[in-house]
């Protein structure tokens, strides 16, 4: 047993940290730190800075223009990004579609789409879920009917994250109704400017504007936009779920949130003493910190296994459950530490020129919204219940 990072890994961490200190724009870090909403331009700006450095594709193999870093380096990189309060990189192109194209796409598709998702030309969104097909994704009904050299797509996708910004959507569509539902699904790339597509916003409970409904009426999609083979889409979607999930626990992000929570608890006063010294609150913080410490080691164990070439097992489901629950608990404690001021809605406090007084302490004006918004994390990407079903199936086997 050796729980330490190697000398090389430690130096790598230093390099990443130094580069971030130099290159992450202060206004973006400030927004991320206070959970202020990011614009499309904010996200693209950061993406392009990373792209120029060659780190945008940090999880990609070298042959596709990636860094070729192993799981441990990727983990370190993500941790440092979180500590620096860098904008989160959207997974849809880089971590979802990208790997699918590398594995199952044609050479033409790889050459065309991969560079464009990096240089900011194409913003991708994910069109899997439908109103009737959430956890039971295979029951999806959006149809694609082949007519000559194109498909005609009809149906509705929903929960499409940031689809309002998207140039392209990758969709699971039904191309056959014979056999098992999983066997009639295809993976299709659809240009969002195609006639017949309508994007309708869904407002979230925190008032945010991050998800959409996407409606398709007789949308023509060239057959070249099919990834892999017809009716094999389910295999490709599942490939995504079982790969590249070593980063799912969000250790860096949670460590960063814990640090911020501790700062807040040190400055808030209860009975004349810092909240951090209040026995009830201190116990709450300690419990989540311990869970996080344990999870970090669990995550590193999984990484070491992946680095050695081991196949991923139920661990990714475990990390998804743990990571999201810890994240949610941290948002709960942060809101709690604000006391009465957690109720205040003061978006004006985001303005660079705002000169107070703050109702919630500076930088925490979005904490309650974040708490509610984070309820989504145990619902999407395979809900906690679905992950538990998976763990049981893989280990208990009944």
């Amino acid at each position, binding site marked *: 047993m050796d729980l330490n990072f190697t000398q090389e890994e430690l130096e790598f961490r230093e390099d990443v940290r130094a580069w971030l200190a130099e290159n992450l724009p202060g206004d973006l870090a400030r927004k991320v730190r206070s959970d202020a909403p990011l614009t499309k331009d904010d996200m693209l700006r950061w993406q392009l800075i990373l792209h120029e450095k060659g780190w945008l594709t940090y999880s990609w193999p070298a042959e596709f223009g990636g860094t070729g870093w192993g799981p441990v380096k990727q983990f370190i990189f993500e941790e440092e990004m979180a500590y620096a309060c860098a904008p989160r990189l959207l997974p849809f192109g880089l971590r979802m579609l990208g790997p699918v194209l590398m594995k199952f796409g044609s050479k033409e598709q790889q050459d065309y789409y991969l560079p464009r998702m990096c240089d900011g030309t194409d913003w991708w969104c994910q069109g899997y879920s439908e109103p009737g097909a959430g956890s039971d994704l295979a029951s999806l009904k959006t149809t694609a009917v082949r007519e000559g050299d194109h498909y005609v797509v009809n149906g509705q996708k929903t929960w499409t994250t940031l689809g309002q910004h998207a140039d392209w959507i990758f969709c699971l569509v039904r191309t056959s109704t014979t056999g098992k539902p999983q066997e009639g699904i295809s993976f299709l790339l659809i240009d969002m400017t195609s006639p017949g597509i309508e994007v309708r916003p869904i407002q979230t409970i925190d008032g945010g504007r991050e998800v959409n409904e996407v409606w398709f009426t007789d949308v023509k999609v060239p057959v070249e936009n099919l990834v892999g083979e017809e009716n094999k889409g389910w295999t490709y979607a599942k490939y995504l779920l079982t790969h590249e999930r070593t980063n799912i626990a969000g250790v860096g992000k949670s460590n960063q949130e814990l640090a911020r929570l501790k700062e807040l608890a040190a400055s808030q006063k209860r009975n004349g003493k810092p909240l951090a010294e209040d026995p009830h609150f201190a116990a709450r913080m300690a419990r989540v910190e311990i869970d996080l410490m344990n999870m970090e080691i669990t995550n590193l164990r999984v990484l070491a296994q992946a680095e050695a070439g081991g196949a991923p097992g139920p661990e990714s489901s475990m990390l998804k459950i743990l990571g999201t629950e810890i994240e949610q608990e941290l948002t709960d404690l942060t809101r709690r530490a604000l006391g009465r001021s957690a*109720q205040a*809605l003061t978006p004006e406090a985001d303005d660079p020129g705002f000169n107070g007084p703050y109702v919630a302490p500076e930088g925490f004006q979005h904490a309650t919204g974040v708490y509610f918004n984070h309820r989504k994390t145990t619902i999407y990407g395979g809900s906690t219940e679905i992950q538990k079903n998976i763990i049981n199936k893989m280990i208990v086997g009944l």
Partner: protein
Amino acid sequence: MEFTHTDTRRMLSDTIDRYLRDKYPLSARVEAGQSEPGFQPAQYEVLAELGVIAALFPEDQGGFGGEGFDIAVVFEELGKRLVNEPVMDNALVPGSILAAAGQSDAVENIIAGTARYALAAEEPQALYDLADVETRAEAKGDGWTLTGAKSMVKYSPGCDGFIVSARTGKGISLFLVAPDQVSLRDYATFDGGCASELALDGAEGQLLGKEGAGAAMLQEAADRAVLALSAESLGIMQTIREMTIEYLRTRKQFGVVIGKFQALQHRMAEMLLEIEQARSAVINAANAMALADPERARIIAAAKYSIGRIGRLVAEESIQLHGGIAMTWEYDLGHFAKRLVMIDHEWGDQDFHLARFIEEGRAA
């Protein structure tokens, strides 16, 4: 032993229920919470006409109730329909203080719904502690002048006056301050209401009750507020309970209604038993209003602690059981869940009341 309400209280709750069911759509309430003044003054007036406010005050103050169970019945009904009219903040709380200070005209107007007052007690540096007061009052002529800052003053727009806590040489006292004496910065609240930061810079104030008696008067009002919030919370939980049961019975995934999944059945069962625990806490607290401290204080603290803990559980579990739909603004559940969680941020959260429970237990 008898766990049913009197006929009068049953009639009152039926009246409120019927009115709100017909005439208080959630959509209007949500919209009001996003615009000025943050609630629906016309609805507030109707509620007063229905006797909602009179039920909160005893006969000798011009009401027809005022006991713990009256408060519990009213606020449970308001909670069920997510009413955000400031019955607690502009009537129950200030009314009980003004009554204690012998301001009978003001109380009558409150009961009639023609006057509203707001309490400005908590300060920016304080975490729920009403004794953490830095605002100062100095005697000047036959009046007082106040200087300081108050935070999260609920429902201040259109108020006829503010009840402000401030320190004098004799400890904490309460003062009545006219609206033109304060400066306000208004903002919306997360659960669809409104609040203000309030600044006092040599504001003129009228002493309420005896100098130095403020802390005790505030505590009396706080106990009533905690009971009201706990009952409101219970009402909200009941609506969430109905919505969630209905959803579990109709939403299908994998070819069956999701209520068939045992994982969800157990989560739901836990929610159901905790809501019954919350109901018991509210009944116990309503009853305790007639008891003396420290017993009363202990039971009130126990109720707010329970409501805080169970409220969070019910809000989070109901969202999880619903899945993505519960994350949307358009679906009603989220609005109920937000108010439920925000109740833990008023008049002391669960940790605050757990500590109070322990302390009062030592005193007992």
